[in-house]
């Protein structure tokens, strides 16, 4: 693969940083402030999109890789940016959804007359700065740096309401995320550096960075480091370190939507899978037999989180546990170590993003329009808010994995991958989780459209949320369908990863 130097990834990051500063400076004038957010989001997406032809594999593009060294800390330890097909999947999705989220959060925050909107918007931009930084990292240190920036910059968003509940959720959030990062990832990173003398990611998913001698001689140590990495990037929501995510639902819904369905949690799974594929590599994972045990380990999260989701009446809580479950799909797919499995896992980064942000957008729209949080109170509401619940239905289908929505593409690849790997157990897990998904998503839509309103309640005067909210959620739902029908665009990137 040809490597070129370009400052575009740096520009994309600086745009988010500058956007945050401009938001802070124009805090007194809400329209200008939101204008800066939009300018930053659109510019960032534009810069990232402009790299698509460079990265996209031949014959559609040039199939190059962008590298940009920034700071050299120690030999083998640097801040270096890299853009390859894997980064682009995450970066394109996250930066595009930021544009939708800017519109949506303007509608949401103003609709509810939330306080401290300037801080909110500034931190939002900083969180995107960190998330895109993770996507564009060329080594474990750079990734760790941006990963921690995301943790710190999203704290104010979770604590936004500044009440007891908000502080409690935010405390849990920061404790889970920093303890795992410092307690597990940091020592893993240092030991990898001691063993290999570098933290730079490999060029392909097969070789990893461990010399063969190290894997043979220190297999146990490498296995321990691997476990530290899987558990240490706790933003990936793998049980038992997933509690922060339901706790973070105290945040305003745009945060839950973009950050806790797309940016932050995807930073977690992106980091995990990046390390699995580009630090350890398929060969090492095969040699130490790490793949299938990982798949079964996260399969527990897939099933358990779905079961917990069934029991939640609060819509956002149900969505949060659904996220925990769906994130593990991604790791499960990659852990199968077959090309189709890895592709299924990676493409789910994008698919889950579009679908889950739709669901959260819907939850927020319902809250703004009716101030309802619980599913049991939403019976019959679909007739008053058809667009919102229509989008919800589409996104639910994607979560379930029904054609022709994006989630089907994932399921197809994952099931094929499980068969390729000869893992009937994983096949059963996937099918079981599909049934559970039906169990907790279908009733929401069904009751909303066909159920009767609760006793003594009439839905007169309830109409759809403002257009700034409904349009983004419709767009996100629509894209889920487009990916489901025409998955080739995104699969081009995914196939470039597996080579």
């Amino acid at each position: 693969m040809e490597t070129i130097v370009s400052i575009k990834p740096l520009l994309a990051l600086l745009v988010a940083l500058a956007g945050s500063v401009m938001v802070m400076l124009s805090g007194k004038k809400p329209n200008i402030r939101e204008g800066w957010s939009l300018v930053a989001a659109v510019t960032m997406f534009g810069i990232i999109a402009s790299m698509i032809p460079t990265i996209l594999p031949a014959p559609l593009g040039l199939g190059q890789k962008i590298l940009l060294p920034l700071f050299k800390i120690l030999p083998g330890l640097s801040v270096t940016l890299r853009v390859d097909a894997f980064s682009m999947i995450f970066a394109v999705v996250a930066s595009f959804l930021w544009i939708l989220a800017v519109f949506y959060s303007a509608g949401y925050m103003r609709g509810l007359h939330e306080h401290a909107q300037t801080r909110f918007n500034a931190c939002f931009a900083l969180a995107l700065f960190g998330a895109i930084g993770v996507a564009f990292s060329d080594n474990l240190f750079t990734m760790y740096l941006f990963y921690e920036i995301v943790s710190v910059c999203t704290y104010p968003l979770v604590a936004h309401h500044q009440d007891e509940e908000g502080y409690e959720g935010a405390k849990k959030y920061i404790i889970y995320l920093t303890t795992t990062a410092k307690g597990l990832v940091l020592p893993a990173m240092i030991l990898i550096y001691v063993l290999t003398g570098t933290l730079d990611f490999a060029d392909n998913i097969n070789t990893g960075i461990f010399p063969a001698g190290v894997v043979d001689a220190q297999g146990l140590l490498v296995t321990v480091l691997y476990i530290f990495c899987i558990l240490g990037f706790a933003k990936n929501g793998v049980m038992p370190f997933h509690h922060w995510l339901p706790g973070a639902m105290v945040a305003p819904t745009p945060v839950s939507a973009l950050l806790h369905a797309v940016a932050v949690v995807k930073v977690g799974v992106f980091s995990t899978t990046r390390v699995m594929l580009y630090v350890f590599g398929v060969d090492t994972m095969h040699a130490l037999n790490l793949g299938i045990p990982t798949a079964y380990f996260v399969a527990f999260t897939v099933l358990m989180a779905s079961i917990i989701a069934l029991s939640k009446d609060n819509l956002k809580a149900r969505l949060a546990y659904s996220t925990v479950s769906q994130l593990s799909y991604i790791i499960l797919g990659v852990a199968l170590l077959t090309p189709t499995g890895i592709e299924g896992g990676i493409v789910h980064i994008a698919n889950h993003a579009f679908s889950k942000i739709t669901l959260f957008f819907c939850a927020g729209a319902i809250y703004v329009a009716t101030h309802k949080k619980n599913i049991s109170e939403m019976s019959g509401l679909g007739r008053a808010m058809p667009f919102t619940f229509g989008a919800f239905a589409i996104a639910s289908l994607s979560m379930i994995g029904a054609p022709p929505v994006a989630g089907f593409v994932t399921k197809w690849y994952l099931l094929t991958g499980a068969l390729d790997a000869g893992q009937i157990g994983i096949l059963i897990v996937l099918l079981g989780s599909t049934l559970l998904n039906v169990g907790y998503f279908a009733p929401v839509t069904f009751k909303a459209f066909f159920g009767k309103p609760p006793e003594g309640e009439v839905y007169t005067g309830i109409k759809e949320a403002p257009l700034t909210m409904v349009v983004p959620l419709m767009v996100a739902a629509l894209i889920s369908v487009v990916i489901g029908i025409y998955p080739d665009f995104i699969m081009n990137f995914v196939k470039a990863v597996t080579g």
Partner: protein
Amino acid sequence: MDFLILNNGFPYLSALIFLPLIGALLLLAMPGDNACRNWTLIVTVVTALLSLPLYWNFDLTTHLYQFGEHHVWIPGLNINYTLGIDGISLLLVLLTTLLMPLCVLGSWRYIEKRVKEFMVCLLLMETSMLGVFMALDLVLFYVFWEAMLIPMYLLIAVWGGPRKTYASIKFFLYTLAGSVLLLVAIIALYLNSAPHTFSIPQLMGQGFSTTFQLWVFLAFFLAFAIKVPMFPFHTWLPAAHVEAPTAGSVILASVLLKMGTYGFLRFCLPITPAATMTFMPYILWLSIAGILYGGFTALAQQDMKKLIAYSSVGHMGFVTLGIFVLNSQGIEGAILQMINHGITTGALFFCVGMVYERTHSRELSRHAGIGKYMPVYVTFLAFFSLSSLAFPGTNSFVGEFLVLVGGFAKNKVVAAFAIPGAVLAAAYMFRLLQRVIWGSPQNPDHTGLVDLNTREIVTLAPLLFFVLWIGLSPEPFLKVLHVSVNHLLTQVGTLPGGPMAVAKLMIP
């Protein structure tokens, strides 16, 4: 004088030592408080500027002591006035000279009584601190070492807080106890060396008997461990920090603590290498104990200064850990961490001092939620706190990373015990930040609280600059260490394997 590269031009080192002293004498003639402040600022800034050529003209290719000066002082006892710096002391000298102007700025309004005397003490401190780092003769070293004691005692005892008497006496007794042992070791070394000498470089590689080395090491170790302070010799530190005025705390944390670890590097390792190998495992475990104890205790503090003081115990544990893993990453990381701790903890003490000037309280709960009223202040505080918890991209991360790389390369079990310390650092610093920036839904009333003024921003900005510079590009700082550290390691490393048997018993 084969260890010294004599300086034939301008005597930089003597000038640096005596400039503050002369400044202090002239200060006595200054009328008025403001004249004293301005004059001290001028003197410290000139000293700082004068120290910069040391870095520019530093020869990176030799382990010999540079900018050397050698004058016979008391020929009968072979006592000489010998100065010189190598890679190990260069950064500490620069740290000292660069911090002093900030200390003056930080005390501008904080000190309102006996300004002249205060400034004299500051300048005397600067002279003796620089002397400690530059002296290559044990007697000269001891003179400067003891000379620090009085002005530091006065800084706490005169300008300190309510319990200043207790704190200053405790500081004095602890340090004096260490000094006595140091003197014993110095005399023992003189009597056992052939020919009798006080020259530090000539005492290295003398091949003293192992028993003698053990005793000398113990005497040195106690003196320096008190200064560092290593657990369990740390109890004077929180008391002294809490009661000392801001500038006192900054000097104490940033420079004085480093003298202990500097002593390990300059005396224990090269002069008594066999004893170093014998005691190494015990000291590693003591360092771990300090890291964990400091972290846990900091987590429980309500007083902001105490919190930072206990965090120092933890951070200095990382430094001693790095020194005694006895490999190049560990020692380079330890020296860098000494500088980092000086910058970061110094900055944090300035930060606490700045709110103390406004509210006359150091209680965490009293300052809950000031983020809304002092946004500039909390921005600085946030950066320094992140640096203190070794956030990637800040100076402490590089130091801690190197120390842990050295640690894991040496022994995985010992290093693994330091990891909870890193987690604890995040815990207590985030706790501090959370309280100060956000607080709880019931915050005290902060109306009327004004944000930082220009002088305060000028005090903190250079420190922030170094936090990010070292964090993102530490090479200019690390490159001066390589040769000296490697030389130090050869001095320790060429040893019979005997004492290692004990080491093997202690660490699995």
